[in-house]
């Protein structure tokens, strides 16, 4: 498995609280992604990064922000968590983001918003 870790692995929080999820890679890959996975929807892209301080929105970015201050770390922040953000969050990395590039996924974070 690629060197990708996510923290925390599980979190329970209350509506309205801020939450930050961390993704850390040791592969020195340029691209990093945050997905959420919900039953019946597969994996939906929230935000991605194509370099330090370079980020862009994905399909379901509302309510989420990201930051990438170092190549190895990509943070996902829920400024004010809502119950609709209860989900499993996966970080992924890829080498150059090209069409044929393979994505490697982290172990996931299960977030429950009460």
């Amino acid at each position, binding site marked *: 498995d690629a060197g990708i870790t996510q923290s925390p692995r599980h979190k329970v929080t209350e509506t309205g609280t801020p939450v930050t999820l961390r993704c850390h890679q040791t592969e020195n890959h340029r691209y990093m992604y945050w997905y959420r996975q919900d039953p019946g929807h*597969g994996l939906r892209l929230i935000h991605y990064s194509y370099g330090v301080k370079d980020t862009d929105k994905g399909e379901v970015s509302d309510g989420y922000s990201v930051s990438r201050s170092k190549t190895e770390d990509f943070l996902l922040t829920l400024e004010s968590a809502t119950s609709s953000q209860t989900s499993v969050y996966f970080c992924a990395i890829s080498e150059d*983001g090209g*069409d044929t590039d*393979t994505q490697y996924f982290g172990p*996931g974070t299960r977030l429950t918003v009460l």
Partner: protein
Amino acid sequence: GQQVMQIPQYQHVQEGEDFTTYCNSSTTLSNIQWYKQRPGGHPVFLIQLVKSGEVKKQKRLTFQFGEAKKNSSLHITATQTTDVGTYFCAGPGNNDMRFGAGTRLTVKP
């Protein structure tokens, strides 16, 4: 925007039976990738198809890419309990990868 649709959503088979999942894109794809996610795990890359009409095999798994490069299938021959999980297809979008909703396979011993 580009969409990737996958059917069926669920498939339950008896061990030894065959299994097929189908993937369709609303647009022509430059390539298609397949991933497997074991229960409680994370998606893991299986294979990539690039050429029109391409067929690739991995032991009991056969992957096909349609002639028009808009559809693909994954066929498993004689399923085993180790095949359980969710199988995703994915195609490139605008600077991202668009995943199908996945087919969840369960196998009864």
